[in-house]
């Protein structure tokens, strides 16, 4: 531990030095005078110039020079001592002087002895002087008379021991201030000095007269007289304040070495002078490895931010403390983030050291980064939830393995009238329908097998497209799936409309191609009849067979009529399909209407077929589309004729009841097979038992279509080979008055 230096203000030193009653000399380690004051020169009768650079031993009486040389060596070894020695004046006269020696070490390790030389006769003056300085330094001096054990001391001693001026110091009395081991140590040291001439110099604690504990630095030196130890001279310096500072320092250095922070002390050029154990712990470098090396070169690496290094250098050059976070590298090459504080130590405008304090914040940074990541993730999550909640026309949900909602969002939830809070933890369609649940489950299970599935499902008259994709996979495979339900009702409807339009177009095209194909067959027969009948007419005209000619003219007429009928059927059907049928409502008498239709049918009736018409009562006036009704009736009646054998009867009845017209057409024809009944009104459908009978399959279809347009109804009862009854009912409009 460094010895506390006695700092005397410059002015005092100078005035002391020039003090005329005291001789003061500074002697270097080789025993030569560096400086002497006027006081000494006057005392010994030398001129100042003659003493400078001269050996000190020159002024010692020849008999005492050996003793003086010994003392000089002792002094250089660091001990403060006082001596009484005979000095020689220029005149050769010897005078006894008291010399108080102190060792001063220069900045470069050179040693000087400061000698305060006092003519013993001038003793009192010396004491006064000492007292002046003592108060400033808290330094007291004493002399113990070995024989009497009496003590003489300076006034400062009263302050140090905190006793009154009336206190008479004795060895026994003084020892009482030193408790326990301190007292024993001092007692022993004094005894040793008296017995062996050993000096003592140590620090210890004492308890003052006011019971205050003080740290003191005490020293004692034997004072020889005629070769015998006559007295012990010494000092007691109150070093409590310094001691406290030292303790503080000690504690601080302990802290520095024990702290978790790395501590580096470098010299002004940045070379490492000291590091603590935490530095080793953090960087992996031992103290030996780093001493004398530059900290920067040792610790920085490729990832170190050069701009930060430059900033640190700039700030330190200005003498400013630095706080930075920097990426350094350990001995093993692994990076370490150091938060460092560097303080330049400046004294008297001179940069002495840098003290660096660094802490490893790698984990803190990592934690901060993960915190940031977490925040970013939370942000993302929030964003996802916002997106999900605002998802239009659909629901975004996350399902667990049991197909229960873990998360659900989307505007469709509200639209479906579901309480969102109740949805969580619920099975996918619990809130909606049992059936949907059953339909959806197999698809959703496939998503849990790692497949992306798309399917459609109907809920409350709405159609939903459902996308299910595997979301989170764990050790046991997919644990969560993302399910997006999108309401595609509108799209579906549009699709259906397009499909419907397409179907209609397709049907129409089919109809046309069927027409072409049927026309090519069905038209050829009547055309053949016409052609062959004309040939026959020519032949019979030559033979003058008028009867046969007329028969064939009728046959031609019939064929043309059947061609016209067929053509009309096709045209009607096309008009119906394209929605181009015109309605022409008029009021007419139903019985007259039926009579004319029956007359028309009779022309085509087979041999012996009878047509019977009966009006079964009620009013006779109806308001209907006459043309359409005629078509309907002709069609069914001509079927009756066509599918009944010769000589069979056909009945037509009409009736008006509650403003509805009812028509029945009954025949004794071949009837309709049971299996064909459901298809009877389909386009181009022909029953199994009609294959040998000509027909296009359009008639009844057109009948049905016309009746639909008239908001009418057609039903039939039929038994194979017995006959068929068709019943038509339709609203007959407002009955006219009368």
């Amino acid at each position, binding site marked *: 531990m460094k010895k506390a230096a006695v700092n005397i203000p410059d002015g005092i030193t100078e005035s002391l030095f020039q003090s005329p009653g005291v001789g003061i000399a500074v002697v270097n380690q080789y025993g030569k005078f560096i400086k002497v004051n006027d006081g000494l020169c006057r005392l010994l009768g030398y001129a100042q110039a003659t003493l400078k650079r001269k050996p000190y031993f020159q002024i010692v009486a020849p008999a005492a020079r050996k003793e003086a040389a010994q003392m000089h060596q002792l002094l250089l070894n660091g001990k403060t001592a006082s001596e009484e020695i005979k000095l020689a004046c220029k005149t050769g006269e010897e005078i006894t002087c008291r010399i108080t020696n102190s060792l001063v070490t220069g900045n470069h390790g050179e040693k000087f002895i400061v000698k305060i030389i006092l003519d013993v006769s001038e003793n009192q003056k010396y004491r006064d002087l000492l007292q002046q300085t003592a108060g400033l330094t808290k330094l007291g001096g004493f002399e113990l008379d070995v024989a009497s054990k009496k003590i003489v001391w300076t006034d400062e001693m009263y302050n140090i021991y905190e006793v009154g001026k009336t206190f008479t110091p004795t060895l026994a009395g003084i020892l009482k201030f030193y408790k326990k081991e301190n007292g024993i140590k001092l007692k022993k040291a004094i005894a040793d000095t008296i017995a062996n001439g050993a000096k003592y110099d140590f620090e210890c604690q004492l308890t003052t007269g006011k019971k205050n504990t003080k740290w003191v630095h005490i020293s004692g030196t034997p004072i020889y007289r005629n070769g015998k130890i006559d007295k012990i001279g010494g000092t007691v310096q109150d070093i409590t304040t310094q001691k406290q500072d030292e303790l503080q320092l000690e504690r601080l250095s302990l802290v520095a070495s024990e702290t978790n922070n790395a501590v580096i002390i470098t010299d002004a050029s940045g070379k490492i002078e000291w590091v603590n154990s935490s530095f080793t712990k953090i960087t992996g470098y031992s103290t030996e490895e780093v001493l004398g090396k530059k900290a920067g070169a040792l610790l920085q690496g490729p990832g170190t931010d050069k701009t930060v290094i430059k900033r640190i250098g700039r700030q330190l050059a200005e003498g400013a403390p630095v706080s930075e976070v920097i990426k350094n590298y350990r001995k093993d090459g692994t990076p370490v983030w150091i938060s460092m504080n560097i303080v330049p130590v400046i004294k008297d405008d001179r940069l002495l050291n840098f003290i660096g304090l660094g802490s490893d914040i790698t984990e803190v940074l990592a934690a901060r980064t993960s915190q940031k990541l977490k925040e970013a993730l939370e942000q993302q999550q929030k964003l996802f939830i916002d997106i999900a909640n605002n998802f239009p026309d659909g629901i975004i949900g996350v399902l667990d393995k049991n197909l229960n909602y873990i998360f659900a969002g989307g505007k469709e939830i509200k639209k479906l009238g579901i309480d969102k809070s109740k949805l969580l933890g619920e099975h996918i369609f619990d809130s909606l329908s049992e059936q949907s649940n059953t339909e959806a489950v197999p698809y959703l299970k496939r998503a849990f097998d790692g497949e992306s599935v798309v399917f459609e499902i109907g809920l409350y008259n709405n159609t939903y497209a459902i996308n299910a994709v595997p979301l989170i996979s764990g050790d046991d495979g997919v644990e969560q799936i993302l399910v997006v339900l999108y309401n595609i009702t509108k799209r579906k409807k549009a699709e259906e409309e397009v499909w419907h339009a397409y179907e209609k177009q397709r049907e129409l095209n089919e109809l046309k191609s069927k027409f072409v194909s049927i026309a*090519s*067959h069905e038209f*050829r*027969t*009547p*055309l*053949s*009849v*016409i*052609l*062959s*009948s004309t*040939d*026959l007419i020519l*032949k019979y005209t030559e033979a003058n067979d008028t009867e046969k000619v007329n028969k*064939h003219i009728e*046959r031609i007429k*019939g*064929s043309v009529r059947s061609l016209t009928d067929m053509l009309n059927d096709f045209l009607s059907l096309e008009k119906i399909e394209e929605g181009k049928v015109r309605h022409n409502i008029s009021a007419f008498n139903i019985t007259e209407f039926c009579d004319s239709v029956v007359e028309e049918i009779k022309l085509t009736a087979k041999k012996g077929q009878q047509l019977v018409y009966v009006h079964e009562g009620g009013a006779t006036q109806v308001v209907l589309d006459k043309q359409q009704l005629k078509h309907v009736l002709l069609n069914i009646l001509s079927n009756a004729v066509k599918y009944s054998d010769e000589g069979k009867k056909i009945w037509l009845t009409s009736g008006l009841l509650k403003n509805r017209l009812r028509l029945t057409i009954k025949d004794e024809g071949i009837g309709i097979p049971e299996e064909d009944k459901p298809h009877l009104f389909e386009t181009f459908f022909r029953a199994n038992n009609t*294959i*040998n*009978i*000509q027909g296009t399959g359009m008639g009844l279809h057109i009948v049905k279509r016309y009746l639909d347009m008239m908001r009418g109804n057609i039903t039939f009862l039929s038994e194979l080979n017995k006959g068929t009854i068709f019943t038509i009912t339709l609203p007959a409009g407002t009955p006219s008055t009368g």
Partner: protein
Amino acid sequence: MVAVIFFKTNYMKTILLVEDNDDMRENTAELLELSQFTVLPAKNYDAGLTLASKNKPDLIICDTDVPGLDRFKKLIALSAMGSMVPFIFLAAQLPEPNRNDVAVQGAGFLAKPFKADDLLNAVNKYISA
């Protein structure tokens, strides 16, 4: 055989006519009868088959649009005299030229509607051959 055929031609030849349309059947029959052929009219194939097996016609004229034609042709072919009897088919459309159909090969075709002369030319061609 030549003598027999010649002998036969001196008599009225018999033609079986299968046609479902009454007017057409009657008109075709009248045209053939005016040319001194004996016509056996049949409204459908079953009736035609019965007539064919009873009367052994010299020619069969039949409408192809009458359902069940294939069956009819097979039955004719299986009957004892079947393969000897020439056919003239009355068709809405003429068959494809190289149609690989035994029953159709060697048969005559007449597209509807046909003129009286076309019919008689075809009949004479098949009966005199």
